[in-house]
């Protein structure tokens, strides 16, 4: 019995991993419009403040607390040559791992966590954003759509980074 469950969960996790890796590639390649198409109409993207990694947007100051409209505005801004922190573009390299499916709702929506290391290189320096993702993914054919995406950073402060000018 455990073997059956294990096979199912391994297959599911593989599909989730494929999706997250493909998403990471879109971001590393600056294909932001394609990335934006991965979100549901009511999606949210959050990054809590480094001193409150458990922070919620209705009670705490976050670093990023985007509705779908704001994710779209963020992408539009980053596509501009006048988003000076990111033009010229930085080079980024995302390592996504330790992917775990934490739960499957009756609707089929998945709760997923993964660890990340996002290296950003620009203007003579490389620094790394380290932390974990929390996702809620909605099945969409063979792939998924993102209903919720949260990046919790391990850093005590953005001492090396200064900004979160890229998508984490």
């Amino acid at each position: 019995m455990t073997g059956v469950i294990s096979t199912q969960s391994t297959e599911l996790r593989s599909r989730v991993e494929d999706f997250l890796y493909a998403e990471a590639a879109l971001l590393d390649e600056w294909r932001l419009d394609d990335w934006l198409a991965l979100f549901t109409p009511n999606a949210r993207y959050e990054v809590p403040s480094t001193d409150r990694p458990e922070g919620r947007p209705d009670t705490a100051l976050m670093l990023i607390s985007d509705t779908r409209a704001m994710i779209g505005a963020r992408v539009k801004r980053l596509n501009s040559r006048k988003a000076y922190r990111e033009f010229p573009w930085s080079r980024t390299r995302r390592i996504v791992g330790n992917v775990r499916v934490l739960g499957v709702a009756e609707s089929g929506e998945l709760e997923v966590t993964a660890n990340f290391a996002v290296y950003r290189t620009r203007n003579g320096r490389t620094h790394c954003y380290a932390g974990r993702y929390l996702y809620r993914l909605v099945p969409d054919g063979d792939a998924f759509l993102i209903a919720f995406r949260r990046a919790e950073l391990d850093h005590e402060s953005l001492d090396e980074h200064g900004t979160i000018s890229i998508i984490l």
Partner: protein
Amino acid sequence: MAYRDTIVCDDRSRGIFRVHRSAMTSERILADERSHIFNKCWLYVGHASEVAKPGDYLRRWVGGKPVIFLRDSGGTVRVHYNTCTHRGATLCREASGNTRVFQCFYHAWTFDTTGKLMITPGAEAYTAGFDKADYALRGPARVAEYRGLYFLNHDPDAMDLRTYLAGATEYLDLILDQGGDEGMRIVDGAHLYSVRTNWKLMVENSIDGYHAPTVHATYVDFVKDSGGGTNPAALGTGQGFDLGNGHATMESVAAWAKPTYWEPFYGDAARPEVEAKRARLIDRYGAERGERIAGNFRNLLIFPNLIINDVAAITVRRIEPVAPDRVSIEAWALAPVEEANGSAALQRRLDSFLTFLGPGGFASPDDVEALESCQQGFAAQPGVEWSDISRGMGRVPLPNDELQIRTFWRAWASQMDGAGFPEQVVDVETPQVSQPAARS
């Protein structure tokens, strides 16, 4: 050396104001700043609401020194240096919390929240000449409060805080009066980041209206896209002011949404509530003052390193030098207590805050880029030695002129020379070449 005339050249006869770029790159000048500015001026520590209950504490670095900011068991807000009086170990090792005592992990000397030394393990090993009263926690020479904002001063001879704040209290009141009967609080969560630039460039940038249309072009586009920036009266309004003692401000009609001024970004459903907030301010403070509080933007510098900007939301920003080319920033959201956790009003305020402000905002990252690029440019010394801050010397200064920044530098140079604060600028600095004021 004299800082006035050699590092800061204030030529009012010609209307030229220049700052020598070594002020941003010299280790020796940073050492002088620590002695003459950070050890002499009132420095912001934190807000009363951050240590709301007896025993609440948090750890901070203020003017290069480690401190514990706390409310003692009797309810008094205090600041202790965060070092054991025994052998020096860091006493408080958590960022924040609530406690009845501070016990040093090195040899377990234990202090109460007032700083009194309670326990020295193995007390019999000390002679009769050893008096625990001599080993109470030490604190800065002075701690004082203005309406919930706590400041410290390392100089026992410093003027009192209220005198020091001079004309800035008018602008602090315009911000703090938004709390009504219940007052203001710091919202949970801080933006903590460092920038590879000199601390004074972060001060300049925080009160600089000139860069907004260029550096923040994408933000202006975002405001337009969200149906904002609709008040035609905002353009060309306002003024920059020297508030005395190095404090400065610029104030103008709000150019986009703030929690007391509705624009479509907040959504139609929020409009009655936002307009009711404005109406309450007008009820309470009268039409002129209430409208000014609700409908204006203001960027405020409290010399030397505190910024309180009342723009898309209210941010309190503390600027702490680390090295000539490195600054550490702490920024918080200041909100009326009546905007409770979980309320739509608080959510709206924080959403508004994040559109512009902070490391992940649509505007602040480009400021960071600009400041870091300036710092890199300063490596061209001695080929290029001076920065120019002359804009608007010949007229009643607009918010996008540079009087606010000159005010900072004049106080900076005078303090560095040990000459106190300069005379407040109340008239046009260079009247012989004055042009008609462009403001309405």
